[in-house]
């Protein structure tokens, strides 16, 4: 809208005032990055790039490396994706394509509720309900018979990479589900009808249509879920076991980047210790930013393609 102020000083003032708040928001984002960067300099100076690949975490000798945490964050997040994506996409297909209309609103309402539960409550439920069940029903029997496979090696304690992955998957399902539903809804109705009119079954229609239209969007939804999982703190801290070692077995305790910050930040004595934790925070920040940008890029491209009607 072209602005004809006609010398109206109040209009100008109002625009400037809102602009000032917009600047404040921009300033906060820059400040956040600057603060993280500045505080991580001592650790960056001391360890350099080797910080990423060093497996020792020794506060006494002041020797720090982020490898076990990066490993734990990645493994637990990928595990979560592995569980959450098929379930969310399947549920999205069911809700959008098969469920009777009266079912849609309550089901999406329930999924939104799942997203509203605070992380610490997931963690609480994880400690006292999920972990014991996983331990007794899944981990113990599997170790007994398949313990020779490195992934399933015991001893089983309960808190573990697997527990973190399962809990994370429950937490990210609502996000992947809602984006998947949006992606499915972009498929032109006439294409679905075309397949059905040729005598295809519902499933054949979905296979063709999803294969042609929805794979990039579902991939975008997956990346979005990954972004959530990477930074999740409380729930993971409470069930992952908090052992700073990178171990292949999913049944053993691990550690994650967010969890080590949560656990050790208040007791970090000495500049290098604190700085190392901030550096882990900075790496986590960079990882989630990259993942979120990728997801946004994919989804924007999807929407652009859908609006062109291809």
């Amino acid at each position: 809208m072209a602005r004809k102020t006609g010398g109206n000083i109040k209009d100008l003032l109002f625009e400037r005032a809102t602009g000032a708040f917009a600047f404040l928001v921009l300033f906060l984002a820059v400040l956040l990055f600057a603060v993280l960067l500045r505080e991580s300099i001592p650790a960056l100076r001391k360890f350099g790039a080797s910080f990423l690949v060093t497996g020792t975490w020794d506060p006494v000798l002041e020797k720090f490396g982020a490898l076990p945490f990066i490993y734990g964050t990645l493994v637990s997040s990928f595990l979560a994706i592995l569980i959450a994506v098929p379930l969310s996409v399947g549920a999205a297909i069911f809700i959008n394509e098969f469920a009777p209309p009266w079912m849609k609103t309550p089901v999406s309402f329930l999924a939104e509720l799942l997203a509203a539960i605070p992380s610490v409550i997931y963690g609480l439920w994880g400690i006292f309900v999920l972990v014991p069940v996983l331990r007794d029903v899944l981990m113990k029997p599997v170790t007994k018979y398949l313990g020779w496979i490195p992934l399933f090696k015991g001893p089983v304690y309960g808190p573990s990479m697997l527990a973190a992955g399962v809990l994370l998957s429950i937490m990210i399902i609502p996000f992947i589900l809602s984006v998947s539903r949006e992606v499915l809804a972009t498929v032109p109705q006439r294409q679905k009808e075309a397949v059905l009119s040729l005598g295809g079954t519902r499933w054949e229609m979905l296979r063709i249509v999803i294969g042609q239209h929805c794979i990039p969007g579902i991939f975008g939804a997956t990346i979005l879920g990954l972004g959530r999982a990477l930074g999740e703190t409380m729930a993971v801290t409470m069930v992952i076991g908090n052992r700073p070692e990178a171990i292949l077995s999913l049944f053993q305790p691990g550690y994650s980047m967010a969890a080590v910050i949560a656990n050790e930040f208040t007791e970090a004595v000495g500049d290098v210790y604190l700085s190392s934790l901030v550096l882990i925070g900075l790496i986590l920040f960079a990882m989630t930013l990259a993942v979120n940008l990728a997801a946004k890029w994919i989804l924007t491209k999807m929407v652009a393609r859908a609006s062109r009607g291809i």
Partner: protein
Amino acid sequence: MPGTISFRRKAVDRTMKALFCLAAILVILPLFLIFFDLLIKGGKELKLTLLIDLPHPVGEPGGGIANGIVGTLVITLMTMLWSVPTAVMCGIYLAEYGKGKFASAVRFAADTMTGVPSIIMGIFGYILLVLPMKRFSAWAGATALSMIFIPVVVRTTEEMLRTVPTTVREAALALGIARWKATLRITVRTAWPGILTGILLAMARIIGETAPLLFTALGNQFWQSHLDQPMAAVPLQVFTYAISPYEDWHDKAWAGALVLIAMVLVINIAARVITRQKR
């Protein structure tokens, strides 16, 4: 024979449908399990003393989380007091004036901040306020929480304002109303239910946040009326009690979680009611 092929295809179709249905059930199931456990285990401890008493030491029966409930409310109010105007004004700028590079930068900043893990906002509050003040404080907690609150509300405010048709703005301007007045009295007021919903949803989110408070507000066993001192909050109490080795504290954790989810849900449902009234 076409009949047999058709049977096979039908069977595959049925199987896939059943699998999709199973996926939907598995997705919703944890919600029921979590609420069931919260009601059973939390309900057991849900007494009046929980809501009006201070925490008791381990082994001493009774005790509550009253200071946490008040602390959560105080920290949330502190956060919102400056975050709501900041975020709404910024949203107004983006929707009504924001076209150039500066606006794109602000949008990118807000989007980026939305994706930042909440624990990192805790680090921010710690370095910015706890280190210089040399003590944990409610201020630091509110600072960390506003870093989560602001970007979310900025983007919902902008979105909601954009749903107001241009014709409404033009009609107001055509009547000779000054633009700033038209923006505030007409555009913002039209979009207000949506903006309010966004504010309430963001509020529900920060009420449940634990990670940003761990090393900012820290938590407190007692009443604290000074905002420059460590302050208790319900999520922090749930966390502390849950990872403690004591049985009676575990019960407290469940009860605290029930109180917390009640607070979050009440605000969530209020937000939904407002959206529905708009239609």
